[in-house]
């Protein structure tokens, strides 16, 4: 999107493009391999875009203050906290959410590792944990246990199942 496009849409005035408190801009985001075009308010957070505009509710909101990592997804292959990014910042980029990592019925190896190693209890932190963990192995394919613990510092598990989460990531790295 170029900003003249934004002005253009804005010039359309109240006919369907003015949302509460602001105006809409058109963005196109490649989400899990599919180009999605939507009108969004500039202030819409990426996590709300994914959950509410696209209906992909696998990505959770935990703290909403960039502390817990429940909202972690990938932008251009890197893990980010989607509660601290605007949807407009993802315009033209590739976004991968937890819904986009399995191949049909076949779970992603990290999902399988979490399942096999009891890496989840209530499951609330799990989508963010899995996305963060995939990012960790992308950058460091054979991490030590310490490296996994440090690299997961941005993800909290309120069920405190950290041992099995770390075990899952290591199992995936070595599997």
């Amino acid at each position, binding site marked *: *999107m*170029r*900003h003249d496009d*934004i002005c253009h849409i804005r010039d359309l005035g109240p006919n369907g493009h003015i949302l509460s*408190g*602001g*105006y809409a*801009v058109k963005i196109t985001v490649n989400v899990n391999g599919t180009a999605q075009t939507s009108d969004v*308010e*500039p*202030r*819409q*957070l990426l996590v*709300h875009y994914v959950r509410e505009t696209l209906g992909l509710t696998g990505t959770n909101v935990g703290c*909403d*203050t*960039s*502390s817990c*990592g429940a909202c*972690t997804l990938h*932008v251009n292959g*890197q*893990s*980010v*906290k989607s509660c*601290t*990014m*605007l949807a*407009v*910042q993802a315009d033209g980029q590739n976004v991968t959410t937890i819904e986009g990592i399995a191949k049909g019925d076949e779970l992603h190896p990290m999902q399988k590792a979490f399942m096999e190693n009891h890496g989840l209890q209530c499951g609330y932190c799990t989508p963010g944990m899995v996305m*963060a963990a995939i*990012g*960790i192995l992308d*950058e460091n394919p054979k991490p030590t246990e310490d490296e996994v613990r*440090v*690299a997961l*510092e*941005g*993800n909290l598990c309120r069920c405190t199942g950290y041992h099995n989460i770390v075990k899952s990531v290591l199992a995936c790295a070595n599997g």
Partner: protein
Amino acid sequence: MIPAAFDYKRASSAEEAISLIAQAGDEAKFLAGGHSLLPLMKLRLAAPSMLIDIGRVTDLSYIREAGDHIAIGALTRHTEVENSAVLQQHVPLLAHAASHVGDPQVRHRGTIGGSIAHADAASDLPATTLALGATYVVQGPNGRRSIAAPDFYAGFLENSMNADEMLVEIQVPKMNGAGWSFQKFNRRAQDWAIVGVAAWRRGSDSGVALVNMGSTPILASSVASAIKGGASIADAAQQAVAEADPQGDLNASVEYRTHLAKVLVRRALEESTK
């Protein structure tokens, strides 16, 4: 938590960003990685009328050798600073300090320019570049000018740039094999430092700066003078708070911060002395 409504423009070059902010006036702000600004906007502690997104000004994302210093583009993300082979070789203190910023997700988004422009005394990179004697290059409607790091930090979350200026480059002198140390004391993983120290030393030359020991990052010049004058590390460390003005908060009292600064400066000097 949703920010108050704002207008959004995306700039594709520094020139465009500067002309957009000049037109937009006081209430507009640059958006780089958004990892300081968006949390403030979500809490409605900031409500700019317009965001000028400079996150795609990719020609300001670089790390390169330039004679006696390394030039870093303002839009370079923490993760690139952390993993840069050029910085690991020539300015290992900065690469290491960047690896202590937040967590991997934060480092994938946050930029060195955003961190310095935000001028948070509690942030790691303002103090680290201050200790290293960095120069910040800013660009305005009439071109570029350089600001020495000690002249940049004007007050609490305040820098000395004009409203229509943008930080474009950080120039950090090569360390030429100097010893160094980065001490970050925090209670929880991912947190900002309660107190932090960035230090380097080569013989009687040294640079020491403090994180979260005042309303700006603090250059501990008295420590460097003491070392220059031949003081022992223990004696030099006693000068740690000479320039500081620590505040008490939920994490630490003024007394505790003062004690911590002296201990961490001593450790940092010990580690830097080889």
